[in-house]
């Protein structure tokens, strides 16, 4: 029992942080709430470091402590803390500011549970926990647009969650157990196995914004505060992707899941990139771009079982968290409309250069973090004999260049009117500064991570 609790220290720390933050908010101390959030999340992340290299389970196999769940703590908790800082930069002084921090923590906890789930019930719990927090976060700005977006997100989430619970029950019926480790026995009843797989893909695919379960994403991101949009595009998404990797790990290959995941992966990245190509609103553009990036993530899921699958997921998750949060931080400072970016490279050279680096990293240009991640993902797909998938992904990354150049090119044009962006905010600048350091440094430090992930 005590040993089980020790393995769960990071998750418990996040839970405690969320509760204390809520208390701070009740006492009307938003600044204290922020400090507690950042400190608590940092402590939680630090407490995950001793777990590196541990391959174990807690509470009779229901929670897995392995490379994926431990690295999820190390990636998602700092990302959540950065999101909280961004939220402060955007929402300081608004009603319910502290609630936002607390909801960020709860949602991150849901993502962590997803990443480590070893049991179908925990999977459902993780989806629900991270979804409930997300709905409330999207609805924070109590206006029509936000309410509409949150409502849509909620309806979508309820239906997908319902489908997931329904389908998963077939798996439980077929194997007689809720443990993921028992999924090997599902082959006895192929129809039940297929139904369960589709249901899990729907539930987790909705969380990760995978085509065709992504429809909520652009509206929700656009309706939510920019900082929340950045958080939603990173933390719950990575949690869901890692959960999918946990599920397929135990599924028999005969079920054909690698092909299903691979097909969705190609569909997702192609659709995301094409849709992003015509957006005028940068937040919507980044929303579709993050849909496309989910497609790249799925490369690593489809390759599960191969030697590179886990390292590639971890490295790309780190890279994606940094570059996407960085890009959202710049959007927070600059504005949602594409026109706001005209001349940014001239009026604010540092911000402009950082944005260019984030976007090039999203394309996957060496030697940035995105390149390291994508390279490993392509390698993982190749190692699992999915050559066509790797080629589709490479073609897509060429296509995505056009998407991101649509932001970059006007940045170095002379603006027609005086720049209208908001006043500089040290918090937002600090966040993109940290994201920039990771984006640039990860390419060099990738060896360091790889040595600590293992196959």
């Amino acid at each position, binding site marked *: 029992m005590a040993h089980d609790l020790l393995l769960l220290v990071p998750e418990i720390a996040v839970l405690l942080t969320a509760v204390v933050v809520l208390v701070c908010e009740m006492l009307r101390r938003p600044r204290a709430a922020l400090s507690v959030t950042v400190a608590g999340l940092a402590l939680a992340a630090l407490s995950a470091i001793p777990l590196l290299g541990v391959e174990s389970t807690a509470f009779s196999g229901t929670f897995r402590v392995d490379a994926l769940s431990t690295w999820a703590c190390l990636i998602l908790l700092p990302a959540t803390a950065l999101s909280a800082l961004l939220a402060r930069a955007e929402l300081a002084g608004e009603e319910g500011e502290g609630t936002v921090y607390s909801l960020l923590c709860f949602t991150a906890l849901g993502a962590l549970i997803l990443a480590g789930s070893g049991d179908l019930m925990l999977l459902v719990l993780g989806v629900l926990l991270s979804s409930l927090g997300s709905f409330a976060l999207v609805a924070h700005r109590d206006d029509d647009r936000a309410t*509409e977006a949150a*409502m*849509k997100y909620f*309806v*979508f989430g309820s*239906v997908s969650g319902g*489908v997931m619970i329904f389908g998963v029950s077939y798996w439980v019926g077929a194997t007689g157990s809720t443990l993921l480790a028992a999924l090997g026995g599902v082959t006895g009843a*192929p*129809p039940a*196995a*297929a*139904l369960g*797989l*589709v249901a899990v*893909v*729907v539930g987790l695919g*909705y969380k990760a914004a995978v*085509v*065709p*379960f992504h*429809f*909520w994403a652009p509206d929700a991101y656009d309706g939510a505060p920019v900082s929340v949009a950045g958080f939603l595009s990173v933390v719950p998404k990575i949690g869901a992707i890692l959960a999918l990797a946990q599920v397929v790990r135990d599924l028999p290959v*005969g*079920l*054909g899941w690698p*092909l*299903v995941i691979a*097909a*969705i992966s190609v569909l997702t990245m192609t*659709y995301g990139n*094409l*849709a992003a*190509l*015509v957006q005028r609103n940068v937040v919507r553009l980044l929303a579709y771009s993050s849909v496309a990036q989910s497609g790249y993530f799925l490369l690593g899921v489809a390759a599960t079982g191969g030697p590179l699958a886990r*390292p590639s997921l971890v490295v790309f998750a780190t890279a994606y968290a940094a570059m996407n949060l960085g890009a959202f931080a710049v959007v927070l400072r600059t504005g949602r409309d594409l026109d706001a970016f005209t001349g940014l490279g001239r009026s604010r050279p540092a911000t402009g250069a950082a944005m260019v680096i984030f976007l090039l990293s999203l394309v996957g*240009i*060496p*030697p940035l973090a995105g390149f*390291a991640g994508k*390279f*490993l993902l*392509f390698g993982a797909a*190749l190692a699992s004999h999915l050559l066509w998938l*790797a*080629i589709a992904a*490479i*073609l897509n990354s*060429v*296509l995505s*260049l*056009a998407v991101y*150049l649509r932001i970059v*090119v006007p940045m*170095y*044009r*002379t603006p027609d009117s005086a720049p209208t962006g908001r006043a500089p905010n040290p918090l937002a600048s600090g966040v993109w500064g940290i994201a920039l350091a990771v984006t640039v440094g990860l390419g*060099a430090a*990738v*060896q360091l991570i*790889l040595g600590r992930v293992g196959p």
Partner: protein
Amino acid sequence: MNPIVPAVLGPLAAAVAIPLLRRAPAAPALLGAIVALAAGGALAVGIAHGTRAELLLPGLPGLPLRLIATPLTALLSLVVAGVGTLVLIYAVGYMKGDPERVRFFATMSFFIAAMQALVLAGDWISLLAAWELIGLSSYLLIGFWHARPGVGAAALRAFLYTRSADLGLYTAAFLFIAHTGTGVLPSAPLSGPAATLAGLLLLLAAMGKSAQTPLQDWLQRAMAGPTPVSALLHSATLVAAGAILLIRAEPLLTPGARLAVGVVGGVTTVVAGLIALGERDLKRLLAASTSSQYGLMLVAVGAGAPLAALLHLIAHAAIKSSLFLGAGVFQHARGGTGFARLRGAGRAHPRVFLGFTVAGLALAGVPPLSGFFTKDAVIAAALAGRHAPLLAPLALAGTLLTGAYVARALRLLWRGAGEEHRVPGLGWMGAGFAGLAVAAAGLGAAVGPIAAWAGGPLPVASGAGVFGLAAAFAGLALGWFVPGARLLGPLRRAAEGGFALAGGLDFWVARPALALARGCDRLEQALYAGVLGIGRLGLTLARSVRRGDERGIDGLIFALARGARTLGSRARALQTGLVHRELALAAAGAAVLLAALAVGLAGFR
């Protein structure tokens, strides 16, 4: 210290220092290039003494990043640094008074650093990284005057053209790494169909960067950048990268892939030569000529003589950069490079014209200038190679066309007169230009030693010299005496009166050639339209996706809402309809998945 470090870090440090210091940006740039040049010299000396420098950096697991000095890579590093230094000296004068000098010199230094990394790369990953970086920096440099109309589009076009072809390099690198299990260059050759496929993919990558038919269009449009950029781009960096890739990868090519390389090179040398003949702008003429000359190098690679290609690459680096630098002086003097402006510009600047003529004649292959020896080697390689009946006539036709367009350009610069502007910074420009022109003239003496250094016998074929010289002189005569300016339309008849002597020749050779040139131009336009069509298809697809995702659904909802209003209901209900619709799409997606799985499982049994 390992000399590889300063070879790359010298220019890179300059690229970092220039925007920080902001003052006197040319000095750090020159210093960086000279450091790289000295480092290249140190590498060569080291190799002469039997030590091969190597630099290992941690990279991906099992695939460390390597930079190596071999006779070939050290030689290329020297060429890059040498041409880079002289072009930078020239640029000090050329960019005098430009408000954005800081950005210019920083990007140029970065460009040289990236190219040094490319030529010294000892594994596929560093090669890929450097390959991308030179693509990026050339994009920045071609688009340097981005405020001028059309410049941004030209830069984007160059980037997209070369980058789509880069797919070939990515896929080939993956093939090599996947099959040999290591990224080390030179790789072990592959076997079976994968080997030919890899060769063709490398050819694709080289075609994009070296502007080979049918991907040559971007190069001429890339003339929108400053002239020193063109000089560097065409001689030792971006465009050279394609040929360098094939020269280094020549041992990996299968006979089939070699034939493809040779044919692409041969076709390009003729097509681009004809385009050059039909040009009416000096810089664009030189750009087409670049494609044509790299075509000759590919012919040599295809004939199995990478050494001949290497020699022609080095000589061409000196020749083409001096031609561009000369053209830059004329550009400043006449306010443009269109033929109408440049009439007689050579007479006004006799010393520049002398250097331009020397370089031009070297390009045509007139002895004893450098181009004679290297072109001789290429023709000999084509004659002695396996596909001589196919490749040799193409190489000779390319030589003939080279003579023709060089003579045409020289004639234009010599005859007539135009309005002169004062040219500032002529001293610096002259210094860089003179250095390169001397190299263009005298490198011929170094052909033997360089061949011995790179470790291979030069290809020999009886008759190569005779055929080559005959083609070169015939081309020069043709270009000088036949008015290529027939394209000038209303001016044509007036010009015909003065050159009646050449009427017969004109009718039989020049007119069909020009018709062919126009045809090629049209073909190029059509191909260009084709490429655009693909782009448009993508956009249409994207738009229809948006329509499917938003507009179509929105439209439906609005129709629903209108219907609802007539019934007296509230239009507010519209948003639920949207969600329903999208949920239906999601459900359809899930159903398709389920059906696919069911079919798959049935087949599985």
